[in-house]
C-alpha cells in the first residue's frame, strides 16, 4: 500500500513540494532569527535585506579567496555582525530612529555589494562561480522512505537553522541570559535598576542577530547558487521581517512562519506549471504578510520597549 503510493504522481509532487518549501524557507528562517534577537533586546531591525545581501556577498568572497566554502560562512557571519554593529551604534549610541536606520542599512547593503562586485571581479552582474555548500545526506536517516528524502538530504544551512532554533529557544526561555534579554525588550529601566549592563546585552543581541541574517544570505549565495549576483536577496529580507511578526518573536514561531512562506512560494511555483494565473499565485505570500501585519491572523505581542530609546539618565529623575 505504502510502496504503491510512494511511486504515484501524488507522492512525487508532495515530496517535491515539501523539499522545495524547506529550501525556500531556510534563508528566511535564518534571517528572521536576526530580527528576533535584535528586537527582543528592543532594537527594531528592518535592515535584514541589507544584512543578508552583505552576508551573501562576503560568503562568496570568502569562498573565492580561500577555496573553502566554510571560510565563506565565517566571512558572512563577520560581515553580518559588522553591518549590524553599525545599526547598533546608530540606534543605541546616537539614538537614531530605528526604522530609518534599518532602511539605511538596506541601501548601504545594496550599494556596497554592487560597488565591491565591480571592484573585485570587474563585473556588474555576477561573481564567478565559487565552491559552494551542497546538500548533505545523513547516513542511515537519509535512506528512510519519504521522511529521509525530505528531511535528511538537505543543505547544511537547514540543519543549522534547526540547531539555532533549538538553542535559541533554550537560551531565551531556560537561561538567565535569555530572561534578562527578554526583560530588556519589555522594560529596560527595570532591568537596569537591578544593576545589569543593559547596553552590553543590546549590542550583543543586535550583532548576534546580524550574524544570523548574514548566514541567511550565505545560505542563498553559497547554499543555493555558489555565486553572488546583484540584489540576489530580492525582497526576502522583508518577508523575514514579516515572518518575525507572524512567529511572535519566538525562535520556534519564526521557523514555522518561514516554513509557511516557503510553502506558499513552493505552491505558487507548482501551480504555475499547471497553468494557473501567475499574478494571483505570486500575490499569495504578500497577502499572507498583509494579513499578518494587519493583525488579522493572530494577536501579535511585540516586546513592549521595541523601537524606544533607552537612556540611563532618564531613569532616575
Amino acid at each position, binding site marked *: 500500500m505504502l510502496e504503491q503510493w510512494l511511486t504515484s504522481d501524488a507522492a512525487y509532487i508532495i515530496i517535491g513540494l515539501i523539499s522545495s518549501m524547506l529550501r525556500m524557507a531556510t534563508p528566511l528562517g535564518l534571517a528572521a532569527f536576526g530580527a528576533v534577537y535584535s528586537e527582543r533586546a528592543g532594537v527594531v531591525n528592518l535592515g535584514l535585506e541589507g544584512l543578508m545581501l552583505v552576508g551573501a556577498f562576503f560568503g562568496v568572497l570568502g569562498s573565492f579567496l580561500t577555496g573553502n566554502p566554510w571560510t565563506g560562512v565565517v566571512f558572512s557571519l563577520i560581515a553580518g555582525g559588522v553591518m549590524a554593529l553599525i545599526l547598533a551604534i546608530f540606534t543605541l549610541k546616537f539614538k537614531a530612529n530605528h526604522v530609518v536606520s534599518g532602511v539605511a542599512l538596506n541601501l548601504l547593503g545594496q550599494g556596497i555589494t554592487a560597488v565591491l562586485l565591480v571592484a573585485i571581479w570587474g563585473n556588474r552582474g555576477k561573481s564567478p562561480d565559487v565552491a559552494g555548500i551542497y546538500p548533505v545526506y545523513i547516513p542511515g536517516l537519509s535512506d528512510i522512505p519519504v521522511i529521509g528524502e525530505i528531511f535528511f538530504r538537505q543543505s547544511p544551512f537547514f540543519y543549522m537553522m534547526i540547531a539555532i532554533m533549538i538553542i535559541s529557544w533554550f537560551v531565551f526561555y531556560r537561561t538567565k541570559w535569555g530572561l534578562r534579554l527578554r526583560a530588556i525588550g519589555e522594560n529596560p529601566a527595570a532591568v537596569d535598576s537591578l544593576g545589569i549592563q543593559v547596553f552590553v546585552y543590546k549590542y550583543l543581541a543586535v550583532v548576534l542577530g546580524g550574524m544570523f541574517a548574514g548566514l541567511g544570505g550565505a545560505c542563498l549565495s553559497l547554499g*543555493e547558487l555558489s555565486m553572488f549576483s546583484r540584489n540576489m536577496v*530580492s525582497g526576502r529580507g522583508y518577508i523575514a521581517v514579516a515572518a518575525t511578526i507572524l512567529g511572535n518573536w519566538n525562535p520556534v514561531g519564526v521557523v514555522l512562519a518561514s516554513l509557511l512562506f516557503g510553502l506558499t512560494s513552493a505552491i505558487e511555483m507548482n501551480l504555475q506549471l499547471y497553468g494557473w494565473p501567475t499574478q494571483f499565485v505570486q500575490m499569495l505570500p504578500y497577502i499572507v504578510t498583509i494579513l499578518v501585519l494587519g493583525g488579522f491572523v493572530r494577536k501579535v505581542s511585540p516586546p513592549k520597549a521595541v523601537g524606544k530609546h533607552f537612556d540611563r539618565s532618564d531613569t532616575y529623575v
Partner: protein
Amino acid sequence: MTKTFRKLFLVILTLSLVGVFAAAEFNVGVVFATGGLGDRSFNDSVFEGLTRAKEELDITLDYVEPSSIAEFEGHERAFAQSGIYDLIVCLGFDQAESLKKVAGEYPNQKFVLIDAAISVPNVASIVFKDYEKAFLVGALAAQLTTDTRNFRQMNAQNRIGIVGGMEIPLIKTFVAGYTAGAKYVEPKTDVSVAYVGGWSDPAKAKEQALLMYQRGVDIVFQAAGGSGLGVFKAARQVNKYAIGADSNQNYIEPNNILFSAVRRLGNVVVDQINSAMNGTWEGGDFCYGLKEEAMGYDTTENSFTIPEEYILKIEEIRAKIISGEIVVPSTLEEVDAFLKNAK
C-alpha cells in the same frame, strides 16, 4: 561642476576635431545604456558593430558611458550641440524621454534610438520582433528534446520549458514565439511556462527550473535577465540543458547550454551608418526581425555540436519567416490560430 567641465571639454575637443578633419570623414557619436561596456550583452554587441564599422567604413567614433538615467540628456545635447556628428546613436529605452526632447531641439541632427519607438522624424527608432527569434529557438528546442542519440541526458518526451522574468508584454511575446515555434515543428510538444516575478532572483528561477526538469522537461529557455543565471545553475545541478538569451551566454555553462538566442545589434548599427553615409537614411519607427538580420542564435563557445539536420530545418524556417510565408504570432492568443493555419 565636473559636468559643466566635461561638457566644455567635449565642446573644445569636438571643435578641434572639426579643425583637424574638416568634416571629411563621417563622425559617429554614441551614448551607451547605463549597463556600460563590458556587459557581454546589449552595449558590447553594439560596440562590436561600431568597431567593425570603424575599420571598414572609415568613420570616427566618440562615445560616452553614462552611469545613470539622469545623465542621458546632457550627453545627447552635448553631442548634438557640437554639430560635427553625422549620426548620434542612443541605446536603451531609458533614453526615449530625453531624446524626444533633444531631437526636437536639433531637428537637423540625425539620431538612432535602439529599443524604443518615439515617432520623431529625425530619429530612426528601432524596436525588435523578438518573437521571431523565440520562434526559431522553440523550433530548435522541440527537435533537440527527443534526440536521445546525440544528447545523452535527453529523454524521449516532447517537453520543453521557458522561465520568464515577469509576465509583461515583452516576455509574453517571447513565450508566444517559443510555443508557436516548438509546436510548428512538433505539434505534440508540451511547453512549460513559469515567471519568476523579478529580474534579480536567481535562487527562485533555479527552483522553478528544477521543478520543470523534475517533470521531464529537458530544455529550459531563460528569458529572465539576471534571474536566468539560476536556470543555468539548475541545468548544471541535474545535468540537463538550457538556452541562453540576449547575447551568447554559452560560455557560462558550456556543458549545459545548448545555444543562445542573440540580437545582432552590431549589424543594425552598421546598417544605419551605411545608409546615413550613402544618403538613404530615413527617420521614423522601425521594427527589425530576422529579415533585417537583427537577431538569430549562436551555437559557439560550448561543448555541443548541433546536428546538421536540425540547423537545415531551422534555416528553412528562417527563410520562410523572411519571405513572409510564416507570420510569427506575437501574442499567446494568436498561437492557436497560427498553428491551425500552418497545417
